[in-house]
């Protein structure tokens, strides 16, 4: 009897591992997406450099089992020699602490640490965000490009192998050759391929407005910056040619550059109507509403002089804009209350049935993400966060 055989040229059409690996990665992303609220408001992510790896502990990617409580259990280990009673082997991981890739096999830890680049995280954040109610306006068409897997070639890389088509081709060829079956030859292989699709983009301008008065403390400023940080990334990624106008406002409104916009606040009183007035003025000068999709957003703590003036100005903005957003960062008593502060309340009463107005209340860092979703979902409706 032959005691052994050797083969060195295995055909490898059976690559389910890549498919399952992708499914696992998708699940990791699903979980990250569910927890984006907590992740994207972290200081170190906002200040991160491009290309930085963000480590996110993810739970739930182990199937649960009925198992013993590891904290209570005595187990057996093995050292390099001379280990004595009382020797310390290491620090036990704390509750909620990740412990690297091999987690799950080590004691008491069931966290999987997903590693994403900031860019990948950004893609996840923006996957479902859109400029709402975008319409064809004007002549200054902007083109955007993206890749689509939509064709089949005879040459390609292994990971793009289209197994179904390959089998089909093999079956057809075998039938042609008069010996039906699934014998696969190199010539049968088919690969998925992509084409770059170009799509016209519409003109859009975004007004990023921010309350920089004395009542805007460190927390309020942080929320504001955090929201606009992600908004800018999102716009530059998906609508690379959209224009952005930065306005800061206390008792006077100023158009500023991006850098000063993100710098720390000012002091003094608050007249948010000035910001709207300046926005109106800029629209009249530079952005004809027949040619531009217009999106003004304002962030304030809701302590303001002249709320009715704001309501009037906002009403005239609604007539010419696709969506008008107001984000109220709750401080003091308002963070404990389900209601808006006076400015927000005035808007709420005035625009209860207006689909083009989006009001959001932000109580804590985790609310930044729902705010982004509220403003940049495809069909915005009047929403309140938390």
């Amino acid at each position, binding site marked *: *009897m032959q*005691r*052994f*055989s*050797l*083969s*060195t040229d*295995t055909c*490898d059409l*059976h*690559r*389910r*591992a890549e*498919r*399952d*690996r*992708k*499914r*696992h*990665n998708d*699940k990791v992303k699903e979980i990250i997406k569910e927890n984006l609220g907590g992740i994207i408001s972290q200081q170190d992510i906002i200040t991160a450099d491009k290309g930085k790896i963000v480590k996110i502990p993810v739970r739930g*990617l182990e*199937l*649960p*089992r*009925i*198992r*013993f*409580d*590891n*904290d*209570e*259990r*005595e*187990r*057996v*280990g*093995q*050292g*390099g*020699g*001379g*280990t*004595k*009673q*009382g*020797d*310390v*082997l*290491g*620090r*036990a991981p*704390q509750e909620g602490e990740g412990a690297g*890739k*091999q987690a799950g096999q*080590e*004691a*008491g830890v*069931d966290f*999987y640490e997903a590693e994403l680049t900031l860019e990948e995280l950004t893609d996840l954040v923006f996957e479902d965000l859109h400029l709402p109610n975008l319409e064809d306006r004007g002549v200054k068409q902007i083109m955007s490009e993206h890749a689509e897997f939509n064709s089949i070639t005879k040459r390609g890389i292994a990971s793009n192998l289209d197994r179904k088509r390959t089998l089909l081709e093999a079956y057809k060829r075998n039938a042609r050759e008069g010996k039906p079956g699934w014998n696969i030859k190199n010539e049968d292989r088919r690969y998925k391929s992509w084409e770059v699709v170009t799509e016209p983009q519409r003109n859009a301008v975004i007004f990023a407005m921010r309350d920089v008065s004395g009542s805007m403390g460190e927390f309020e400023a942080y929320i504001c910056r955090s929201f606009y940080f992600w908004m800018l990334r999102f716009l530059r990624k998906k609508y690379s040619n959209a224009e952005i106008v930065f306005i800061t406002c206390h008792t006077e409104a100023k158009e500023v550059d991006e850098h000063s916009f993100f710098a720390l606040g000012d002091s003094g009183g608050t007249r948010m109507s000035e910001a709207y007035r300046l926005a109106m003025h800029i629209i009249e000068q530079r952005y004809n509403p027949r040619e531009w999709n217009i999106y003004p957003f304002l962030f304030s703590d809701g302590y303001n002089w002249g709320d009715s003036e704001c309501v009037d100005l906002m009403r005239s903005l609604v007539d010419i804009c696709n969506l008008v957003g107001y984000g109220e960062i709750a401080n003091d008593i308002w963070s404990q209350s389900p209601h808006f502060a006076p400015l927000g309340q005035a808007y709420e009463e005035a625009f209860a049935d207006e689909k083009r107005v989006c009001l959001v209340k932000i109580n804590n860092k985790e609310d930044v993400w729902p705010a982004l979703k509220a403003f940049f979902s495809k069909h915005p409706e009047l929403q309140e966060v938390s």
Partner: protein
Amino acid sequence: MTHAEREYLEKWIDIITEAAAGYGLDCYPTHFEVVPDYVIYELGSYSLPARFSHWTFGRDYHRQKTSYEYGMSKIYEIVFNTDPCQAFLMDSNSMLSHKFVVAHVLGHNDFFKNNVYFEHTDRRMIEKVRLHSNRIHKYEEEFGPLVVEEFLDSVLSIEEHFDTGLTAQFRRKTPEEYEADRLRGDQKPATEYDDLWDIAEGDDPPEPPKGRKFPPEPEKDLLGFLRDYAPELEKWQRDIINMIREEMIYFIPQMRTKIMNEGWASFWHERIMTNLELTPEEHIEFRKLHSSVLSPGSKMSINPYYVGYNIFRDIERRWNGEGDPELPEEDWRGERLQRPTGEGMKKIFDVRRDEADTSFLRKYLTQGLIKQLDMYTYKKEEVNGEDLWVVQDTDWRKVRDSLLEGMTNFGIPMIYVEDADYDRHGELLLVHAYDGKPLDADYTARTLKYIHSLWKRPVHLQTQRDDQTIHFRHDGETFTETEL
């Protein structure tokens, strides 16, 4: 691999196979396949070729392959318990590594063929799991991949809970058979001649039934029980439970003999390689490779290769009459061992045939070995507000007993189906056979949720913590924990 390389390897496989046979290794024919790294890692993470698709395998594949790409770990070989035995070698291995791996594989091959616990394994399991995979794929097409995935998640979370004492011949009893056995009320084994006993004993009136609890006896085979009695499962779902259960049964002997199997293969790769005609460079490379495989564990665990290898070496030495006079040599009862001479080789072959890890360790992990291998017990302790892993004991009996204790039921809590009509509401009552080690409540809660998705009615689990009886309950939405 070039033609010349292939011929060279073939020549050496022949030499090594010849050498193995010369030592008395009794192997199935082996089919060696040289494959790229990703195939090795795919095989490693699915445990069998062409097994069904699931994201947990994809996760393991990702982890193993990443770890390999970062140079942190490497799988040299994958071998499957089939006839002919199938072994896969990584194409980036050096020729010396190939020789090393071939010798190691033949050790596994002999073990699969001759260890008594493998006697009933299905040697055509690769064909079977391929069919399983096709069926599951068909269900994905019919019912949707996400529906099937969710169902697999539930089943896989309890895949360890079947009756580990099963052999391939086992057949479940129907409720009627259970009832009939119970009424018969004796301990006689059920055989095809059972009816003769009935004739012989005449027509004694059976005892009246004492209530209608089902299952009449606690049932350890949770998977089998759900497959047969979960009230609302569809046919394809029962089929999936059955397939997973069959695959798990196939893996049982390997789980049971991990330390022995790796120890045996390592023992033989060393014996064979040491006596081959290798160049001095090859000898050095072999020694490096050998010591990288056979090194102590990670402080928090033991290395089964290292422990098993040293036990086999120790047995051979002792049965050859080369005891170490400085170390007391006692058997597991504490009695002094009779020193045989010249029987080392015969003895290790007997051990590889007759034992599983638990008996192997109990009989042959001696005081001297535990000291030599620097084994200890450890536990979590709070020191100055910090949780640390602290060595508890190095006493050999305590270490050995703790090791064996951890291997009871493969280190998995023993769960029984107690009542399938709990509270007369068709709820499922499970009982944990508590042996002093409490359950992880959080994990248990999440698993119960999965069991609920199979049983479709509230699921209960009774266990203990510090002499207190605890009752867990999950109704699909909420989990409650009550102290009784």
